[in-house]
């Protein structure tokens, strides 16, 4: 019996190609400066709204000494003093 062309496979391939084109399109779009400028304009909105709704002198919540973390994750270097000393000399 001759093999009938698999329509499902064609559909699947077309779908996969479409998805790849879509994702590729996303990347091209995401790389463009225009896109980034438009997206960044939302930050102005965010800033303005934040200024509008939060009082000027609002402070971050305070914590007691008991709230100090037992473990403090080093960011970059585990021994900042060592790093500073190296800079000094």
């Amino acid at each position, binding site marked *: 019996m001759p093999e009938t062309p698999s329509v499902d496979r064609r559909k699947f391939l077309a779908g996969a190609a479409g998805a790849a084109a879509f994702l590729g399109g*996303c990347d091209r779009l*995401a*790389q463009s400066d225009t896109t980034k400028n438009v997206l960044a304009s939302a*930050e102005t909105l*965010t800033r303005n709204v934040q200024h509008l709704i*939060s009082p000027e002198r609002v402070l971050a919540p305070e914590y007691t000494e008991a709230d100090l973390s037992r473990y403090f*994750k080093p960011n970059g270097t585990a021994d900042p003093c060592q790093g500073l000393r190296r800079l000094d000399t």
Partner: protein
Amino acid sequence: MDESDKMPSGAHDRPNGLSRPQRPAAGRRFVHRHAALVRVAHWINVACLLVLLMSGLQIFNAHPALYWGEVSDFSGPAFAITTQKVKDGQLRGITIVAGRQFDTTGVLGFSAGNARAFPAWATLPSWQSLAEGRLWHFAFAWVFVFNGFVYFLHGLLSRHLWRDLVPSRRDLGRIGHTAWDHLRLRFPAGAEAIRYNVLQQISYLTVVLVLLPVMVIAGLAMSPRMDATFPELLGIFGGRQSARTIHFITAFALVIFVCIHVFMVFISGVWNNLRSMMT
């Protein structure tokens, strides 16, 4: 295009939202299933949620671990996606859920030759960039919030939420029956098909009134300035790390909802359903 173009009668005096059945025209009957505003809001929401999800995964990748409480206790995350070196120097993606480890190489932790939590195809942008992920996320968060606000306002004013989404006593009484029909993939036809059934009502209401608002509030709770302005935000969730975890869990609840939703759209008559949401 609007189906009402093809239909001679009653196209313009219809009420908003789900309309009454209209006079049969040539054996077929076209019914305005959704108000124009609901249709537009739906598709804007689709775009927003897709961008928010993918850019959210990008942001998550910058620190692919979740914690409960106020502190990131690095030693015991509730959930983490890690890349680990096994004996022969090979890299494996290991996902840790509540202390249990799962090998998720190929998708989570290690994919396409890269050590990264979520794979490139799932994040926006596809390359690793926290800064650009945040740009997308916060820009589309605004679109999402505006869109949701307009939808909600319209839902209240047109009484769409109340009339179409809040289940009636009668519907609730038949919930077992409706669920059983759904499990056998038997769907209502005729007049019953042009309104939401009780399972739809409950799941849509959960999404609109619970998941999406929790998403927004948990998102705001991660903003230091919002926490300073509204310290209750941290109280609600019990810390910024909990808020982050809940934000993530809610996102996945929405993904599951979308999967089921799209599945149902497909098996209950894909063209009719798509047309009803477009025209």
